[in-house]
């Protein structure tokens, strides 16, 4: 195929894997315009991956950056599709559009008191400490001695780890300065991680659980459910998790340490408080197998209140409707067939908005491959009629590759002075100012 002109919306892992595959398989003269709402690329690799996981962020430097620098790719940052340019205009300007917009919302607990100050979505705190410009106005009160995280997936463990890691270790990461200040003054001694089912059904992965054992000065404890006597019938991964949890919980406790308490078989019932959070009422569960054999939590009727001033709900992310596209409210995804959006002719999806919020960074590679394969099969072989792209529709204040590089270099320079990977610019206007500044003139050598 020749003459292919594509728009990709979203510069996170889903979009970048789609671009990588398009560059390899989209024909020699494929042209890709990459639209990103923010001034900075990399999506959750920049604003989701924990600051103490620098190795995972290498995927940007060692993989995505090569695609971004390819002459067939044009980065168009600070452009919001659906607002600045409509889906209808975009899809009319390209042979195909791929939406890789991720999941903009999260699951609610749907319990009384959930909106009290002090009860937050996990994503808000993660985006706050990772420097996402849309979350910098938030304030988190860490003056309570106990924090409770509802949910025990990897995001929950990231937050537990960040709340308990010694400040001097965090100070070597690219966590924001404001988050660092907050955490340095934190009074939190205990983080309760709540799971509605038992240790064998916990949502975290093994590497994230193991890591808790490496935080200096932190004890791990288990409450609410005895560890299963036998791991018989468990998957290999689950067996590893159970053994690791038992090992971590059996280490001698030190009263001077902070503590992460896994509280299993407990569901949140009510956020307690009048003006702000001062507790979480939880109900005990027992597990019962349903018709399919899956273990479901059933309330036993016993409940209690955990005293806390800070609650994070970390029970899953969820996609949001995109203007001009269909939406499946049940799954929080854009309905599609192997990546092609149902009812549309040249519109595709990849990543979390396509398959739901599952998997890790590389899971998106296979997902993108399927979408691009479908797209290429739909367009067939031969040469495509020329299309203009949406250049004429672009708003004035947009960030190109050189602009992003100015932000990137500035952040790394500031980081180098402090022995950190980077110091993030977190203010939208500051990012734009830096990106649009004239390049410094090279002083003449004399």
């Amino acid at each position: 195929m020749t003459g292919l002109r594509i728009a990709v919306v979203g510069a996170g892992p889903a979009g970048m894997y789609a671009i990588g595959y398009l560059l390899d398989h989209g024909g020699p003269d494929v042209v890709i315009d990459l639209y990103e709402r923010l001034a900075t690329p990399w999506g959750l690799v920049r604003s989701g991956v924990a600051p103490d996981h620098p190795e995972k962020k290498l995927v940007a430097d060692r993989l995505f950056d090569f695609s971004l620098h390819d002459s067939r790719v044009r980065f168009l940052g600070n452009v919001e599709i659906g607002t600045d340019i409509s889906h209808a205009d975009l899809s009319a300007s390209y042979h195909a559009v791929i939406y890789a917009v991720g999941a903009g919302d999260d699951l609610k607990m749907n319990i009384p008191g959930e909106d009290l100050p002090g009860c937050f979505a996990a994503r808000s705190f993660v985006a706050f400490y990772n420097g996402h410009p849309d979350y910098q106005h938030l304030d988190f009160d860490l003056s309570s001695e106990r924090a409770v995280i509802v949910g025990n997936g990897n995001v929950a463990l990231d937050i537990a780890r960040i709340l308990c890691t010694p400040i001097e270790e965090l100070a070597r990461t690219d966590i924001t300065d404001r988050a660092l200040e907050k955490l340095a003054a934190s009074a939190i001694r205990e983080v309760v991680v709540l799971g509605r089912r038992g240790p064998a059904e916990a949502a975290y992965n093994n590497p994230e659980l193991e890591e808790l054992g490496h935080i200096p000065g932190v004890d791990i404890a288990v409450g609410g459910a005895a560890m299963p006597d036998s791991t018989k019938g468990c998957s290999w991964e689950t067996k590893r998790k159970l053994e690791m949890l038992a090992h971590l919980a059996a280490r001698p406790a030190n009263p001077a340490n902070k503590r992460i308490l896994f509280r299993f078989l407990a569901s949140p019932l009510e956020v307690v408080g009048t003006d702000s959070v001062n507790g979480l009422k939880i109900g005990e569960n027992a597990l019962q197998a349903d018709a399919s054999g899956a273990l479901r939590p059933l309330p036993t009727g016993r409940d209690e209140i955990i005293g806390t001033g800070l609650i994070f709900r970390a029970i899953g992310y969820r996609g949001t409707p995109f203007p001009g596209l269909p939406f499946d409210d049940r799954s929080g995804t854009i309905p599609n067939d192997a990546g092609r959006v149902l009812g549309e002719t040249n519109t595709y999806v990849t990543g979390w908005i396509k398959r739901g919020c599952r998997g890790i960074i590389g899971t998106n590679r296979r997902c993108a491959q399927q979408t691009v394969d479908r797209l290429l099969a739909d367009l067939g072989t031969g040469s495509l009629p020329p299309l203009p792209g949406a250049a004429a529709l672009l708003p004035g204040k947009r960030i190109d590759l050189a602009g992003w590089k100015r932000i990137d270099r500035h952040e790394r320079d500031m980081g180098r002075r402090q022995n950190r990977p980077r110091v993030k610019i977190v203010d939208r206007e500051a990012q734009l100012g830096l990106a649009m500044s004239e390049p410094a003139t090279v002083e003449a050598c004399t």
Partner: protein
Amino acid sequence: MTFVIAAPCVADYSCVDICPVNCIGPGPEEQGFDDAEQLYIDPVKCVDCGACVDACPVLAIYEEASLPDRWKHYAKVNRDYFHRDSVTA
């Protein structure tokens, strides 16, 4: 000696694509890939070529003897993955 995939793995399967002896799993076509916590190297099949080390975008692959202390046990984890049915029993 063998190469070992440690905790930073993000399941980008560049290593699977480049491995000349197909000793890394689960690959993208295998059942279980979508929920994989990470990928693993079968030490019995690995021929120590090291091609995967450079291909890995997050530098998660180490020679067994060079594994950082906190990830030393990943030699066993990688090995056990390929015997997971017998390990589970």
